[in-house]
């Protein structure tokens, strides 16, 4: 018997505590016509599913669920696809257990 119950990522992130710095996203995607392979990969491999492809085929980010892991930075900062900073002190993810 094989049962794999897939939970929605939203439900996972819902458990977490965040202090969102409204209007000051700490990661930005550089405007582009078509995304690079690495940028496109982030729509699948970002553990918080922050990246999505919009109707025009470009990759967008909503940082609210971001866990500040740095995966997107490692893949996409060097080639200029994204601009990555830590949130202001005290903002962002607040792990209760870690």
């Amino acid at each position: 018997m094989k049962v794999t119950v897939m939970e929605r990522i939203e439900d996972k992130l819902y458990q977490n505590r965040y202090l969102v710095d409204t209007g000051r996203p700490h990661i930005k995607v550089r405007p582009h016509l078509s995304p690079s392979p690495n940028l496109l990969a982030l729509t699948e491999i970002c553990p918080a599913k922050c990246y999505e492809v919009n109707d025009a085929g470009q990759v967008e980010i909503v940082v609210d669920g971001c866990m500040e892991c740095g995966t997107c930075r490692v893949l996409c900062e060097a080639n200029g696809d994204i601009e990555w900073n830590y949130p202001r002190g005290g903002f962002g993810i607040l792990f209760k257990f870690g």
Partner: protein
Amino acid sequence: MSEEKFDAIVVGAGMSGNAAAYTMASSGLKVLQLERGEYPGSKNVQGAILYANTLETIIPDFRDDAPLERHLVEQRFWIMDDTSHTGMHYRSDDFNEQRPNRYTIIRAQFDKWFSGKVREAGGTVLCETTVTKLAQDLSGKVIGVHTDRTGGVILADVVVLAEGANGLLGTRAGLREMPKPEHVALAVKEMHFLPEEIIAERFGLTEDEGCVIEAGGTISRGMAGLGFLYTNRESISLGIGCLVSGLASTMEKPYALLDAFKGHPSIRPLIAGSEIKEYAAHLIPEGGFKAIPQLFGNGWVVVGDAAQLNNAVHREGSNLAMASGRMVGESIFHIKCRGGAMTKQNLSLYKSMLDKSFVMKDLRKHKDMPALLHTNRQSFFTTYPKLISQAAQNFVRVDGTPKIESEKATSAAFIKARSRWGLVSDAVRLALAWR
């Protein structure tokens, strides 16, 4: 504050930063520690196993008040395929010793405790403060830091970069390179809460005893990766990590890997009925010895994960972080005592201490492992686990097949999958990398 000058500024209040700040503060240096989290630990993620011996050299009586979960009496290594696991269990009552060797911890609580010790020792700890940039003079010497608080540069003789796996400052200042996707793993983790008695019963433990499982195999879907399950007092830490390069090429969703691991028939019953209270993600440095960057320069030193001091083979990171933090603290104290300046030449003392310690010796020993696992990931993480499961099943299942035939079938399966030469060369390469 900008008028004041510190002996040392420590960036980060994780394992390495706390060890460095504590060592310096308790030897009387004027230390400022900056942490971007709301409290120390609020940004940190670990499995987490604490190795007592490293902490003991820093705080000998830590057991009196540190928040420890369970001391470990049992370790399981599992090789998994989709429906089975083949395992080795090691359990010993010897681990029920006076001063246990390994404990599980919860980082948010542990880091808060450790940071409290820094304060008690006289260090100044400022949380909710993100360091945005290193301050350098015209010669490139690091002279302090800029933060996101108002006020100018905060000056210090030396800055200790304890900023963790995803450290921005050192890379931005050109002191080291950004980690490569094949040198870092992304781990995702959940905290599963269960009553203490249920955990004890499911794992055959008494009160304080703990058990850990490290698992490899098809759960990482052909990527170099590992799963883990650690028992805390009333929760289970469960997670899986894979190299970022692997994720980028397979486009696997980390949370889908985690859900599949949780749903595996060998894991599912262990966490059944639990309440999940947190989902976390963090990078782990996996590049090993060959990925270690320059560790010191004029006015700066780097410790812990930021310096890639992480032993992926043995799943040790926090103790290398604490050990490097302590050695940096001792080196800086030593240089101060002689009245020396925090020059690159003087700070090389840190590197020579590190070289003589278990930190560099262990990392050097396994220097070929990361590349071996990375380039042979199909065999090590898919082919062998499947073969091992098949072999175990051939051995155990009684179905009227003569033993000689099932043994033949087993070896034929291995040879078919990897060829005789492939098997021998995998074994030799593994042995050489381990040596």
